[in-house]
């Protein structure tokens, strides 16, 4: 059967299980959009900026166990995707991006809206393709989805010239993949697993550091079994939050720059670190020379290039986290680490990281806590990047697996709102809250229009402090309070929301916080709350940049503590 390039792409989408596409059209990709009505099973969500399309596909992929798909036209459409693709790359999110390209005869001629997007995205994609032969499209589509979701997931970009969309060729969707050089290691090496089990069974002060690999591998049960069998405290990275229920007695929260004091002390004092599906980011380790100085390190990751990249590792295990943990758990003897766990609990008591002081004005931590109480820890929280992100990570108690969606590696301000669109599309019946900062929110504020058009019932809480708050905090602590370019005059967010047809309210006093959240929860559709929070509140604890995890700044003691 003959098909056009456009038909082959969309038929490939259907065969690969795609249900939703996020994107914006334009001249070069118009033939593909023109073909969309022939595939009514594919839902298209029109964003207001291509960055929004990429972030929405990212949020969708993180919460749907599917590959996120986004599309854009050539030139500026393609370059606008770049931030979103980079974000997905650094957080290992499976994504396929289709970009239109100028027709083949115009490539290399600086044609209107021509840009070398495969060149630009070379360092931020797992792989990319420029399609010069229409007959190769089915193979490329199949490979792209396979590459995106297997091994260490990541974004794959396919750049398709306009005339390729239109050209008709004989169509066969390949049954088999032909990728001889791509073979991710899925099973851990038995000898390494045996070594790891021995270390775990002999350790006295072990900690688990759980990362996003557990989400990707769906290894929540295996993580829990490991922790419970050997009674090991579970500490998470930012993206490892919600891999382990935070009400669990062995849950000790996040580590790193804004991690819990007790978690950072525990890692620093431990004799064994079991790092699972994480990559020792500098925000996690502090200065690497003093990271876990007394510990042996077991590192489990599917990407061999992550082993030994940042820290020395005693027992590397390359493989899929779920496979490795299943095999490892069989070799564990049940253990107790009563003295060690008591030590952690002591640190938690003597260095409380989550106390919220009493204040008439609205403290951002208080807002997060109230959202937690209103949703009982069962919502999916999506954040932007900055102070609010850290407060959302610290003060919401995550109970459900994979219930925090945040930009970790790239730290992309503006991620929150469009990512929340993707999350709400992936989880239509669930409560989704976008906790955002006023700086982050204004970077992708136009996606309110997408929310209104798609009638997505997501709730937006803006922790509005009138600053680019995280940078202001650094200026306060490390640049003698020179607040250069951080004060941020914003619009009236409630009026902005209303202009988009979305109801909202403003909260300026502590007593208004809980009712505003309730109002949002009662609203069947989307709702925006502008929380006017304490402008110069800092995120604590904080490991100063270049510092050791064990030497952190804690919140200055202030009058009356209210938890």
């Amino acid at each position, binding site marked *: 059967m003959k098909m056009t390039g456009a038909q082959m792409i969309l038929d490939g989408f259907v065969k690969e299980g795609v249900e939703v596409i996020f994107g914006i059209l334009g001249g070069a990709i118009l033939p593909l959009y023109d073909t969309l009505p022939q595939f009514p099973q594919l839902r298209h969500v029109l964003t207001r900026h291509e960055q929004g399309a990429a972030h929405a596909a990212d949020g969708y992929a993180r919460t749907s166990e599917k590959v996120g798909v986004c599309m854009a036209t050539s030139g500026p459409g393609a370059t606008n995707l770049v931030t979103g693709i980079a974000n997905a790359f650094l957080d290992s999110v499976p994504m396929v991006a289709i970009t239109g390209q100028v027709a083949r005869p115009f490539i290399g001629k600086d044609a209107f809206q021509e840009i070398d997007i495969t060149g630009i995205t*070379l360092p931020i994609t797992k792989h990319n393709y420029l399609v010069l032969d229409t007959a190769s499209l089915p193979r490329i589509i199949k490979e792209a989805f396979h590459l995106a979701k297997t091994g260490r997931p990541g974004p794959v970009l396919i750049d398709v010239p306009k005339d390729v969309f239109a050209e008709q060729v004989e169509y066969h969707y390949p049954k088999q993949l032909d990728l001889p*050089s*791509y073979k991710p290691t899925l099973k851990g090496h038995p000898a390494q697993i045996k070594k790891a089990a021995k270390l775990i069974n002999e350790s006295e002060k072990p900690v688990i550091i759980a990362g996003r690999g557990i989400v990707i591998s769906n290894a929540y049960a295996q993580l829990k079994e490991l922790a419970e069998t050997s009674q090991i405290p579970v500490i998470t990275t930012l993206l490892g939050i919600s891999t382990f229920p935070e009400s669990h007695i062995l849950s000790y929260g996040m580590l790193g720059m804004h991690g819990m004091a007790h978690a950072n002390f525990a890692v620093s004092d431990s004799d064994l670190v079991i790092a699972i599906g994480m990559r020792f980011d500098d925000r996690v380790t502090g200065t690497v020379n003093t990271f876990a100085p007394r510990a042996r390190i077991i590192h489990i990751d599917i990407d061999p*290039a992550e082993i*030994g990249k940042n820290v020395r590792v005693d027992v590397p295990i390359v493989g899929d986290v779920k496979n490795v943990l299943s095999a490892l758990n069989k070799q564990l003897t049940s253990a107790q680490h009563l003295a060690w766990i008591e030590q952690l609990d002591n640190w938690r008591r003597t260095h409380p990281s989550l106390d919220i002081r009493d204040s008439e004005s609205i403290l951002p931590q208080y807002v997060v806590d109230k959202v937690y109480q209103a949703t009982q820890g069962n919502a999916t929280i999506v954040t932007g990047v900055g102070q609010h992100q850290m407060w959302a990570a610290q003060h919401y108690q995550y109970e459900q697996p994979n219930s925090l969606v945040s930009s970790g590696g790239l730290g992309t301000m503006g991620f929150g709102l469009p990512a929340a669109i993707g999350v709400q599309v992936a989880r239509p019946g669930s409560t989704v809250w976008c906790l955002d900062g006023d700086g982050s929110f204004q970077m992708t504020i136009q996606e309110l229009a997408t929310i209104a058009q798609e009638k997505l019932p997501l709730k937006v809480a803006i922790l509005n402090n009138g600053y680019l708050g995280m940078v202001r905090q650094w200026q306060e602590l490390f640049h003698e309070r020179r607040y250069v370019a951080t004060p941020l005059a914003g619009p009236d967010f409630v009026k902005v929301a209303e202009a988009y047809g979305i109801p909202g309210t403003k909260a300026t006093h502590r007593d208004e916080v809980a009712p505003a959240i309730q109002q949002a929860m009662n609203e069947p559709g989307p709702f925006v709350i502008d929380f006017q929070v304490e402008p110069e509140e800092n995120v604590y604890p904080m490991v100063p940049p270049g510092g050791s995890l064990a030497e952190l700044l804690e919140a200055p003691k202030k009058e009356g503590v209210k938890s």
Partner: protein
Amino acid sequence: MAKRTLIALVEDRPGVLNRMASLCRRRGFNIESIAVGHTETPHLSRMTIVVEGTSAMVEQLRKQLDKLVVTVKVSDITADDIISRELALIKVKTTPASRSEVMQIVDIFRAGIVDVASDSVTIEVTGDENKVDSLLSLLYGFGIREVTRTGRVAMTRGGSGLLSAEKGSPTRGDRRQKAS
């Protein structure tokens, strides 16, 4: 930091060299030399990449290169028993008086003269970098007009090939025995 030699088997497709070179650049490695050519297997090219770095740094680069979808296998063969060769073409200024002296040096180095003009000769030399460097330093006095060097190509001695070495590969000791 020492020079290290990596061998990469890669798919023979457009853009592969760009992917390899771009990765070296963004991971902070300066490529000393890179040589690419076809192999015994159709659709596979072989690269010899020379970079400077500690073994740990280059091991990280090796793993990153290995991760690219287009690479079949990347090995660091620096510590192995290897044959490594480079070819250079050297155009040297000559006068009737100096020509025979240049030809003598060429003979000693077992190099060859591939072109003769009235005021210059072009020499082809093959060997490891030391040999090429030594020859060049001897010729400087005569006046060098032009030099082009291919960069290193390398192969381990004995044993099996880079690909088949994965299964039941002989230990380094075994390979030496075969060679001797």
